[in-house]
């Protein structure tokens, strides 16, 4: 469900909303088209579901188009996606032909709005060839990479790059994710929607209901890691950290993630996790359905400390979700976690189970410090990781691309 910009006033603050409205006024009437490959499911669709209505509310004529593909196309684009994230994938010339042909087949519907738009934002690799298929385009075209392409399978990147380098600009989530390209590359970090089910304030009664449902003791400290059962999220390392703390403090641990039955590796990791947990009644391994947003929200709110002890991470927005709930977060010193945790201020960056255990014990013995950190954590998210910031950065980019002429500062 999308909300109006005004609904965010109490959270983001009136100055931030006013700033956006004023910037929006300068772009009123602009025709913007976003293109991706799915209307629901996945992070990109989630972002567009709130961003498009908010841009429209600001007076920007914004449309969201979805390319239609065949199962073969999505099989190929899944491989491209994996290849860009570093997995070696065997993609043939025929596969790239399927990829291109599906983009061609979408042209009859898309050519007119795309060629007439002032700004086109192409999300991820699936619709990337559309630019060269619209030779009469008049606007600025932006390629938005939502994934980490810092160490791609070279063969995949070599095939995709000719499509991408013709764009006027590209956007990456982190500077570490970018690839050298012949156009300006901008950094726009992801954000959270504070009014979504995953982040909205919950009634204490709802928290207690969830606490009872999972058999959690309200009188003992609770550690929570929310993530799928993946080796890089290091759930076994989290259990080791818990076990080190458990020797001296009566803590409880929740490891909650999605069902992994269709993922052979996920199943294997889950078995490892269950083995490491043994018969400890204070370790709660929860397999949650994909729509458990309020449950995840409740678990994060019930936690004393949130953990995200990844050994490799893309952006890891669960960290921001935890910080927004006013909790200190102990996270792995990797990927986007480094951006979200201000070490010693909103939580701690750690490298080992021992490091995590050390910080957990320290915090549990220093409740005041924990509360102060939690307070700072929430303010940090308010200033840096709410969707209003992400929207403002898109508007900034549009204004600069249309009127900037390469200058550092422009007046609009």
């Amino acid at each position, binding site marked *: 469900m999308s909300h109006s910009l005004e609904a965010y006033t109490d959270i983001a603050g009136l100055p931030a909303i006013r*700033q956006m409205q*004023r*910037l929006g006024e300068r772009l009123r009437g602009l025709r913007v088209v976003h293109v991706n490959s799915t209307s629901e499911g996945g992070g990109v669709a989630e972002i567009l579901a709130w961003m498009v209505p908010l841009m429209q509310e600001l007076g920007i004529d914004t449309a969201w188009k979805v390319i239609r593909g065949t199962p073969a196309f999505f099989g190929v684009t899944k491989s491209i996606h994996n290849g860009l994230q570093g997995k070696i994938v065997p993609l043939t010339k025929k596969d790239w032909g399927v990829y291109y042909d599906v983009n061609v087949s979408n042209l009859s519907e898309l050519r007119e709005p795309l060629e007439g738009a002032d700004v086109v934002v192409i999300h991820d690799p699936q619709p990337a060839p559309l630019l060269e298929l619209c030779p009469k385009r008049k606007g600025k075209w932006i390629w938005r990479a939502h994934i980490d392409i810092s160490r791609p399978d070279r063969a995949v990147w070599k095939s995709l790059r000719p499509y991408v380098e013709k764009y006027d600009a590209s956007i990456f989530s982190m500077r*570490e994710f970018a690839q050298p390209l012949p156009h300006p590359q901008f*950094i726009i970090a992801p954000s959270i929607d504070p009014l979504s089910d995953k982040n909205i304030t919950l009634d204490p009664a709802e928290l207690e209901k969830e606490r009872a449902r999972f058999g959690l003791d309200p009188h003992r400290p609770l550690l929570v890691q929310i993530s799928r059962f993946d080796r890089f999220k290091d759930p076994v390392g989290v259990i080791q950290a818990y076990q080190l703390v458990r020797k001296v403090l009566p803590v409880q641990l929740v490891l909650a993630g999605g069902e992994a039955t269709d993922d052979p590796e996920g199943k294997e990791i889950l078995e490892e996790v269950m083995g490491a947990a043994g018969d400890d009644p204070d370790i709660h391994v929860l397999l949650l359905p994909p729509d458990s947003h309020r449950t995840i929200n409740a678990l994060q709110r019930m936690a004393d400390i949130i953990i995200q002890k990844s050994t490799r991470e893309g952006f890891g927005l669960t960290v921001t979700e935890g910080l927004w709930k006013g909790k200190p977060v102990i996270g792995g010193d990797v990927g986007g976690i480094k951006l979200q945790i201000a070490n010693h201020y909103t939580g701690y960056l750690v490298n080992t189970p021992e490091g995590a255990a050390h910080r957990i014990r320290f915090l549990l013995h220093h409740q005041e410090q924990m509360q102060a950190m939690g307070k700072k954590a929430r303010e940090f998210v308010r200033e840096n990781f709410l969707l209003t910031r992400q929207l403002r*950065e898109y508007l900034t980019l549009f204004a600069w691309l249309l009127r900037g002429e390469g200058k*550092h500062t*422009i007046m609009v």
Partner: protein
Amino acid sequence: MSEFEIKDCSLLIRMSGLPAAVNLRELRDRVSICNPDVLYHHFCETPLAPSFDYPDYRNDFAVWAKWRLGDEILAERLGMIDPYLFPSMEELRAAALEIIDDRLGEVTMIPWARPGHEFYFMQAITVAFDTGERIRHPDELHAAIDRMTNGSIYFHVLEARRREPVGQDDFSSWLDGQEGNWHHYQTAIRAIDVTFHSLSEIRRELVEGLSKPRTKKTRGRKQ
């Protein structure tokens, strides 16, 4: 009296195109050739980046030297560079290079950063816009500043120093053109050490500084 036009601005960070530095030698080489906008970003645009309480240093080079190279001596020296004391980016560049060169001459091993902790050379774009709000009289300054966004404070106090007249904030420039004697306001503004304050602190200092003379004047009238 001319009106003061309150502007606001929004920044967006972009890659500079330079490869990341993994050690002090590479940092030195890239500082020597980077675009002035890159230097400006790492020295002057940091107040718009997230920070907490009183960060150790106000520029990204000093922070990297301390936390990623583990070289506190270099961090202390780089941290004392006040970018607003240099008349141009080239002079700022020369000062930074001299400190780095001195350090390279002192160390027996080139300090280096672990993978994942490289120094990325970034720059920013700034889109500024008129808020439509106006200040009509110098006595209205403190109340107007109190309502300003961080973007406005940044634009009028810090970013202004890069524009003509170079080195001066917009409020002081505006006061220069007003009838009457507003030296007490200008003195209050110039007394603020902007390098070591966050934007919220600069706003608070400005409001306090600009309120004081007015209070004295009011008292004087009453007596």
